[in-house]
């Protein structure tokens, strides 16, 4: 079930991986995602803290250190690969959209 779950990333999953280019802990992730998406994407604490351990078991992110009861994560090469895969998927969608040439 877990494998199927990450076959395509939802926007929230995508943004979590995106902001982990530098080590961050949970609350920072929430703020950063909200910041870079101009408040468009907001991640609830429940969702975030359910996803982080799942990403870790999938190998997309790594737990770097724990201080003051805060777990700091960073993206792994596997996670970057996943993002690249997501990029090609989106590019494909974009090129298809352009090729179809919808009239506005």
């Amino acid at each position, binding site marked *: 079930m877990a494998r199927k779950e990450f076959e395509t990333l939802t926007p929230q*999953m995508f943004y979590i991986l995106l902001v982990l280019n530098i080590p961050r802990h949970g609350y920072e992730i929430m703020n950063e995602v909200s910041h870079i998406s101009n408040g468009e994407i*907001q991640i609830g604490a429940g969702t975030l803290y359910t996803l982080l351990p799942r990403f870790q078991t999938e190998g997309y992110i790594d737990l770097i250190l724990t201080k003051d009861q805060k777990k700091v994560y960073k993206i792994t090469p596997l996670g970057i690969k996943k993002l690249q895969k997501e990029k090609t998927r989106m590019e494909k969608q974009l090129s298809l959209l352009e090729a179809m040439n919808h009239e506005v």
Partner: protein
Amino acid sequence: MKYKYVYAQGKLLIEDECIAFLEDMSKQGWKLKKVLFSLFVFEKCDKSLKYQLDYSNYDQEYINAIEQMGYEYICLFNDIKFYCHKDLNAIDLQTDSTTHELNILKRYKILYLIFELILLVAMFLVCFSSTNYSTVLREEMPADFYIHFNQEVLAWGIFVLMFYVFLQFIKNINIRYNIKHRRLKKDSLICFHPLFRLFQFVSLIVLSAFIIFLFYFSVKPLILISIFLIACFFSNISQILFNDQKYSKKKNIKVKLIAYTFTLLAISLIIFQAFMKDKPIFNNIGDSKPYYQYVDLEANKESNLYLTKLEFSESGYFEDTEDNKYHSETYYDVNEKKVAQIIFEQLIIDNEFLTNETRIEEADKPIEERKEIKHKTYEQVKQKYNQYKTSYADICYYYKNQLIAINDSQILECTLDDSNEINSILKHYFN
């Protein structure tokens, strides 16, 4: 400080309805303080609040993060954490429906389903292996219903319970299936703990056992109270069973629920009144000594809503006469004349059937050659039997040493060797 208590049960079933209810209460100036077993406790507050429920069990960092977001922890109930936020536009705790559903599914452990299945099978076995239950439910004669009323109630009670467990079982399977296949819409996610439902079931059993106990000892005034309790309880079950549109249509729901409960109560009261009409609380059993006092009789008294049955019987093998001896005196004190008539007629029919010569002949033959002998109707038996005229009973039949008599609402059935004693035994019981 003033507190307000609201009965919670049905509202704890669906998350969005629960939240809608709590937010509605905060608009009216009540803030959730805690959740007791099936009660919401509210205290006064002057702000509208946003509520969130959380099921995950993460570490301190998670709790800190929630608090940093501005959520205030209220209480824990059945693994469900209640949070509130002063800002109505705050971010939800769960923003991704997929992870949310997974969290909820975790609570529906397959263990509960297995437990319910075992319970169901156990009850099924109890029902159909015990001769008591199956024979009670297979009785065809209407009089048996009155004579064995207590066992009847017990058997049907068990069946109702079984049906209830079965419904819950189906419902649990349905919930599991739907969550697993992502069929539930976001607004119908469940936050109701299965253990809570188990508690409900157990309390239903205890309540029914209590009522059956009361029936058994015929403590009639208390039966009234317990029927009240059962009616209240069932109205809550119906809340759960028919919960689906409850808090989405906010208006008139409370009114409807109250009306529903009261209707149930009223119906149960009317039924009870019909049952109890002109009935004494305890039957006057009168002289409870057997007529034949010189033999060692076994006394047996049974009492239910309809009648009191007093039975003296003796059976044994006597070496000197090389004979099986059987003697019995059964006296019924019935509360209703109509019921007494039904029982009397059946006793006559049964007596004819037992002493029927063709039936006894047939019983000696091998099973394959046996003809089936049916019970005769009361009218047919009446023609066969001669009525014994006596001033002590309304109708009295004496046939093959068996005396059956009815006087008003009292019935006597006994074995009697000497027909000269009929008058004195009738006088003994009917006066």
